[in-house]
């Protein structure tokens, strides 16, 4: 029966090629635009570390001077070096790491390569286990290495291949800003999206290529980058332990909500202790947000992308209404034909089904074409010079969503006209002939 309906649909399309093409194209463009923007949104709003995003917390304290204090106001979004080192020493959480972004000149040993800059992260031992960084060789460094400023480094797969032509680089020497460091680990491709643990270097920044213990980075005076806020017109070295500047991100892993509550209490008591010692001038003002809360607070997903998604769905809606209107008129025009079929014994249900098949066919055609357009749209997005451009890829989940959307859209577009038209009264239609 469905085959017969498909044949009827084909004949109907042939009678109005231009109109059928218009309906298919409209649905295709609507679906294509919506899926392009939805895919980008889906990628950008993704959980960067699934399964662990509710156990990793970002620590904020308020060491600023008393003037300008407003109760309840958001504390700075980074820590001072003194506080970060104190929290690291305290080791109260399951795991904890202090970190800052940086960059350093690398001098390749082999001939033919000139020196270049690598993006780095100066951090502490727990970083790798806490963020589940995958290793292809070796491992991270140990807490003792942090304590004694060991001359060690973890490098990315790409850097290992560039420098040594192999990923098995453990034990090799890397020359960083004029200092020899020993490679202890090589990490696999790793790019958490968004770049949640440090949003100062771009929300969707690429991962780093070089990881060095924080203490070592200070001994060697490696350059740091990112945001730094100071107060009280500081003099001298702004990266020193005592400098009144915040520039370090601090993450902790807390396995259960109870532990999180306990850690929050610990931060409050730490602040009060600092206040009593005269280092802090403000009442305790701490924040402890997990990854999801932190990304949400930082409005990481670009507003433009959300707006574009709304616009695209508005466009799809107009395309759908357009198709509903055209199908309705088309079906109504065939009232006479449908009347004859009814008079010859076709049930209302089979008329409904016939029209729905016709509408569905348009939908599937529009969906397939729309998928092509979405692919093209994403390709266009990837050509854009934004830092998330290359992430815009169609994954299986979004592929399935596209098809579902196209089919649902066309069936919806067909439902109303089909239902409207299958109620024709055969006698009136026959008489009007």
């Amino acid at each position, binding site marked *: 029966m469905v085959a017969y309906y498909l044949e009827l649909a084909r004949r109907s399309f042939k009678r109005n090629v231009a*109109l059928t093409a*218009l309906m298919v194209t*409209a649905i295709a*463009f609507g679906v294509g*635009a919506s899926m392009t923007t939805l895919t980008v949104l889906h990628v950008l709003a993704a959980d960067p570390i699934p399964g662990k995003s509710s156990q990793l917390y970002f620590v904020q304290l308020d060491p600023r*001077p008393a*003037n*300008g204090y407003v109760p309840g106001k958001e504390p700075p979004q980074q820590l001072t070096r003194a506080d970060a080192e104190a929290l690291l020493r305290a080791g109260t959480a399951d795991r904890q790491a202090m970190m800052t972004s940086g960059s350093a*000149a690398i001098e390749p040993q082999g001939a033919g390569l000139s*020196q*270049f*800059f690598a993006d780095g992260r100066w951090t502490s031992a727990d970083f790798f286990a806490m963020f589940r960084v995958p290793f292809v060789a070796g491992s991270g460094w140990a807490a003792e290495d942090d304590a004694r400023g060991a001359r060690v480094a973890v490098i990315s797969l790409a850097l290992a291949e560039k420098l040594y032509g192999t990923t098995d680089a453990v034990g090799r020497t890397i020359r960083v*800003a*004029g200092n020899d460091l020993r490679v202890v680990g090589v990490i696999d491709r790793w790019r958490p999206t968004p770049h949640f643990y440090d949003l100062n270097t771009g*929300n969707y920044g690429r991962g780093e290529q070089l990881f060095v213990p924080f203490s070592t980075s200070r001994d060697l*005076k490696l*350059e740091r980058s990112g945001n730094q806020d100071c107060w009280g*017109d500081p*003099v*001298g070295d702004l990266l020193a332990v005592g400098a009144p500047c915040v520039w370090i991100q601090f993450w902790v892993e807390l396995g259960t909500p109870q532990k999180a509550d306990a850690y929050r209490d610990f931060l409050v008591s730490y602040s009060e202790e600092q206040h009593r010692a005269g280092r802090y001038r403000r009442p305790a003002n701490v924040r402890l947000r997990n990854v999801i809360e932190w990304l949400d607070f*930082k*409005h990481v997903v*670009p*507003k*433009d992308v959300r*707006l*574009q998604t709304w*616009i*695209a769905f*508005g*466009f799809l*809606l*107009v*395309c759908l*209404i*357009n198709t*509903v*209107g*055209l199908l*309705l*008129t*088309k079906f*109504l*025009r065939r009232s006479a034909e449908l009347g004859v079929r009814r008079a010859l014994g076709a049930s209302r249900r089979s008329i409904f089904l016939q029209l729905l098949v016709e509408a569905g066919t348009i939908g599937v055609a529009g969906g397939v074409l729309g998928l092509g357009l979405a692919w093209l749209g994403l390709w266009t997005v990837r050509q*854009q*010079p*934004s830092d998330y451009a290359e992430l815009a890829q169609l994954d299986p989940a979004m592929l399935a969503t596209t098809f579902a959307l196209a089919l649902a859209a066309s069936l919806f577009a067909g439902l*109303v006209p089909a239902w*409207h038209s299958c109620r024709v009264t055969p006698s009136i239609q026959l008489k009007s002939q």
Partner: protein
Amino acid sequence: MHFFPILSTLRRHRAASALIALEIALTCAIVCNAIFLLHDRLSRMEHPSGVVEDELVVVRLTGTDAQSDAGSLTAQDLIALRAIPGVRSTAATNMVPFGSSSSNTDVSTVLDDVNSTSAGFFLGSADLLKTFGVKLIAGRDFVPDEYLDLETVLANRGHIASVIITRDLAERWFPGKSPLGQALYVYGKEPQIIVGVIDRLARANDVARPNDVSAEVSGYAVVMPVRMSYAEGGGNYVLRVDPTRKGEVLAAVGPTLNRVSPSRIILDRQTFAEVRQGFFKADRAMAYLLVGVSLALLIVTALGVVGLASFWVQRRTRQIGVRRALGATRGDILRYFHLENFILTSAGIVLGMALAYAMNLWLIHEYQVARMPAGYLPVGAGLFWILGQIAVLGPAMRAATIPPAIATRTV
């Protein structure tokens, strides 16, 4: 004329008429808001910088390791760059308008004021104002002996005596009086004396990037007579050049700096036009998208009107024949379809205006855009009336050519 007959016809095609009116309404609402957003983006992209954009080339430089002689290398760099043919003047600074890194400070007429204003914080070598080409509207530029090295300032071995501020900042702190000679706390425990006022100098974050939640007030900036080396973050070299020789100068920058010392890395070398383009790239992408979607919507809607009208013409062939046979002229038939379209479009526009207003309210709430000027609505309405009339022209002309004889045939 045919107003009431048309209404009763439309009532017979209630569903289709309602749908096309709804489509016009939605398109109208979206397109009005899209054009408004587009206008908003285009005006952002034209945000003035205050510098002579056409004549500037910007080079960003960094050292490869801790260098003690970075200060003297910076001075040598500037001299070497000035010697490139086509270069008129050079300066080193910590920030360029719409550049990649921003530097801000809180200023006030009282020390440690809670109500201080955030202002762009420009530190520059001699000739910075001349190189940027900013307009000095009062007072004077810095004199040579006012310049200090950043190292000296940070080590607390010297006090910056003077500052030049923008007109907007002057009006914020000294409304209605001359700011020249006034004291302003910009850096340190002692204030700086304002020696000059410039028309405008945009900081790197003078307009918020579209996704930036922490927008700074635009137009506020201070310039301090402080030399800093590239190793201290002063590695933005600004070159004022002959606009016709930018290409040549850009090509010569690398070799020139390498001759001074090969121990540095050039991060960027761009014309100011490229700097601006880079900063506003998201706005440009959004502008293209808005134009594209608006055009697509207008085309789809117009085609929808054409499709619907064509169907109605076919369906009413006999009725039109009868009317022609009874004496209606071609013009009457043409007018009939145009009027019908006008009624449908008007219904759509009325609904569309309300929707456009609601959509704008939602955008104001969610995206902090401005209120849409009322002028958009009549312009939008006019656009849709014209669009509808053009779309229906083809089907209406076909209807007008239906011969009266058709009435005598059975279809």
